[in-house]
């Protein structure tokens, strides 16, 4: 049986100016141009506060996320009752350049 595909999640952090605009715009544009399926959410913080059930779905298998600090992202999923698997790859758009984040998101299995 083949392994489930890796989900890709992009957080736009739309309601605060803590992620550099040029970084998130570039990552989103690269993802959109790549042709891969992915989830883009306006704000993971808001999803966590709403206990959004899609967080459970996203945490249920292999996942790569473009968001912010990994400790915060794991905390947000745990707070929503859906801890991320240890294998989840969290890419930090607050601290890493867009090219590095996008390349890691789109890495072939």
């Amino acid at each position, binding site marked *: 049986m083949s392994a489930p595909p890796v989900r890709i999640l992009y957080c736009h952090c739309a309601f605060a100016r803590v992620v550099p605009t040029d970084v998130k715009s570039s990552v*989103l544009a690269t993802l959109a141009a790549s042709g891969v399926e992915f989830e883009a959410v306006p704000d993971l*913080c808001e999803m966590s506060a*709403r206990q*959004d059930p899609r967080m459970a*779905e996203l945490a249920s298998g292999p996942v790569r996320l473009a968001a912010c600090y990994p400790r915060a992202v794991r*905390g947000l999923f745990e*707070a929503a009752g859906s801890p991320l698997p240890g294998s989840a790859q969290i890419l930090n758009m*607050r601290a890493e350049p867009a090219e590095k984040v996008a390349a890691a998101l789109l890495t072939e299995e």
Partner: protein
Amino acid sequence: MSRLDTAQVRTVIYEGPGSLPLEANVRSQIMAALLEKGFAVTSLRDRRPVTALPRDFLLVLGRFVSEPPQFHSEVALRFQQIEGMDSGAVVKAAEELQANTGGVKAGAWKPWFPVIDYTRCTNCMQCLSFCLFDVYGVSAGGKIQVRNHDNCKTDCPACSRVCPEVAIMFPKYRHGPINGDQVSEDDMRREAMKVDISALLGGDIYSLLRDRSAKAKSRFSKERDDERALKERQNCLLKLQKEMDIPMEVLASLPSPEAIRAKAEQAAARVRDALTSNSSTPEAS
């Protein structure tokens, strides 16, 4: 009802069978425009189920060439032909659906609330004791948790500063480690130096506010020096703002000294109950 319990409109850009693919730049522009307005976007190329809350609405966007495809979905769906539409028109369609369905306008609330790093938290309940706005609660198992997210005062990270384990994060804060950045040795040294908020402020925050208020009242009654009393209060608030990075709006909206005292007593009782319960139920520790 919390504003977080209201319906939302989510969007799906469908480019599978029955819908023509979008140009890459058009796809990117539409996504960015929707996200900026607070709409989640799923980029989809097959008809797999899309998860959403039962109260939510899905707006499926596509360049449909015939009848809209059949989707398995447990939530209300609407299909939107976007052939010839620019990103502004697509956003408008989403906003109209949001308005027609009574959905909450995304972004009406800046998602500012504490996130607990349970790998560091020792369940000491200092945050519960400290918060005046009932943000924290205790689970049935006696574990500290964030209960009322939207009670939290935007841009106020004060509770994270009283946490002795640097376990409280505000992901939208400017600086680490409160923003979730790794906790360094220096951060821990600072916590150790801080010891507690009493040392920092010369008394716990509640008693500080009470004392200052009482002194101000006393001075006012004895000297009728309202200007001096006001200055005293302003100095106290400025010290809190500076040391703890608490927005002035939050300090200005603090409850009365009597209400603060009552809150502190209630919080202390809740902490006692939780800690007593935890000591008798090992699984809660």
